[in-house]
């Protein structure tokens, strides 16, 4: 973990000081899945999530490569913030857009053909969890996704959400309790 963090710092440093495109491409590789997931849980649509995710990284590059901007210390906190803002902008521009639904069962079933029944059960269960997460308030959603899906540490999450570690722990505890209650109700 320490080695990964150092590498990330090194890449960020190269991007900011030398506009190193390859270093930025590596940061893209490290973060694209998490950012896409983060966006998808808020938007719920693959196509729009792809567009927004691409836009997030382009914005990140434009900021980091601009020598006139204040330097960024943590790429993680920085890129999640851009993603958060991008989602807000998207909702503002698409206030009346219908909420699209996902077909989790079909997507997961394609992958698991060895035991289709089990795969379908799993898919249905994941869809249930997904819908339960969507019912949480944004703060709880983010905490659950970042901690238990993206597997980030408490300190990393604290940087991303801009809170102290204790506050993050408290939020996580409440979020999981709420998620469990929501699943039990359904």
């Amino acid at each position, binding site marked *: 973990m320490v080695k990964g963090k150092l590498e990330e710092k090194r890449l960020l440093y190269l991007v900011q000081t030398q*506009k*190193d495109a390859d270093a930025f491409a590596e940061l893209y590789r490290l973060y694209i899945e998490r950012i896409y997931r983060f966006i998808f849980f808020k938007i719920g649509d693959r196509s729009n999530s792809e567009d927004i*995710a691409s836009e997030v*990284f382009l914005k990140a590059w434009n900021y980091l490569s601009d020598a006139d901007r204040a330097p960024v210390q943590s790429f993680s906190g920085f890129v999640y913030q851009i993603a958060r803002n991008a989602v807000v902008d998207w909702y503002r521009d698409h206030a009346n857009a219908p909420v699209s639904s996902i077909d989790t069962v079909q*997507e997961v079933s394609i992958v698991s053909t060895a035991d289709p029944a089990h795969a379908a059960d799993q898919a249905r269960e994941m869809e249930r*969890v997904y819908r339960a997460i969507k019912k949480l308030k944004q703060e709880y959603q983010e905490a659950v996704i970042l901690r238990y*899906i993206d597997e980030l540490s408490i300190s990393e999450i604290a940087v991303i959400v801009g809170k102290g570690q204790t506050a993050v722990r408290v939020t996580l505890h409440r979020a999981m309790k709420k998620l469990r209650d929501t699943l039990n109700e359904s």
Partner: protein
Amino acid sequence: MRELKAQLKHMKTRGPWNPDAGFVARGKDTLLSVIRSSRRDRPMPESALPLDRLRVAAHLLFPSALQHALRPAFGIFVVGAVAISGWIATVSAAYNSIPGDALYQVKRAAEKTQEAVVSVTGSRSDKAQLHLEFATRRAQEVKQVLAQKNESSGDKKEAVAVAVDSLEKSIATAKDSVNEANKKEPEQTLVIAQEVNQKSSEIVSALQEVSKDSATSANPELVKKVAEAAKLVNDTGIAAVEAVVEKQASGDISATDAKDVVTKQIEAIAESSKAVNAAAANVQTIASSTVVTLLIASSTPSLVVTTTVSGSHGSSAAVDAKATADAASASVVQAVQKVTETAAAAQGAIQEAKNLVESNQLFKAIQEVKKANEATQGIQQVVDEVQKVVQAAKDVKEAMGVTGAPTGAATTTITVTTTVSAGAGTTATTTKK
């Protein structure tokens, strides 16, 4: 709860909330394509200097707050490591060397090392201050070269020209650094302006001494270079002070601090104006002397006869000489008038600037400072024109073989008075019989 956490973990690898592999690959290619077409990226070179790697390492190892606090210590560490080889003893000895000395290259090499260290560990403000220090040293070197007594005039002239050239370049570098620092580190605007104030007055003071030296005033090219150096110094100072006044208007700098830097800039411009006026007075004295000599020569019968006999273009040479002398005389008179008027305008603007500072109208005060600066440049331009005329007159003198006051039956009395008022006022009266 454990089961729920396991389910959540499972969602990381499966489900439409995960990006498609094709999208990830395409996204990366598109991103790189956009980046490379819009900007030129410079990946870290394979043969990066050890200092670059050290910088990256420092950035990784130390938190940003600690990096900032450790910057001076880091700089000292690097300089200290270099010193282990005994370099520092040589550098100390070279500190007082001037262009032409054996150790002067050592001094300049040490400065380059300092510059490299500051580039790595210092801020843009640190870099600007270092460049200002270098410019001050170049100015001191010019003075020291001029003060040398045991050099032949030819060597000294060359050494002075090289030193002034160096000075001009270092001031230009300092100006760029100051502008960059003001743009990128606005919180350092006041510190930078204060440093510029201090160094500018040292440089201008050195330039004044250089201007007064007879070796300089006899060399039109050198006079011009000294004036250009002074202009650069003043432009840098004005730009730095303007930045302070803007920050004061937005409340980021106190009125007291802003007034202080503006006042110091006014003093610097006043000193500079004096220096240019003094140079103008010197040049005009020389011009008057040359013109007078030529006027006498062109109207001395014996010389005209001699010239007619000895040269195939003797008679036209005499006519040319008279025409040149008349034109030169007219130029000098016009120049004197213009310099007087312009010097008065500069003085007026300086006084107005002082009054405006007293009444806390700093923006307007800076505008008056700019006017004074422009007027001072105007005087320099007049000086340049006069020097061209003087050179033409000298050329004609040489063609006629006239080296000093002519002897002969003819007697001519001419009185030429040149006066430069407001500032370094001088009155030169030349009487020839």
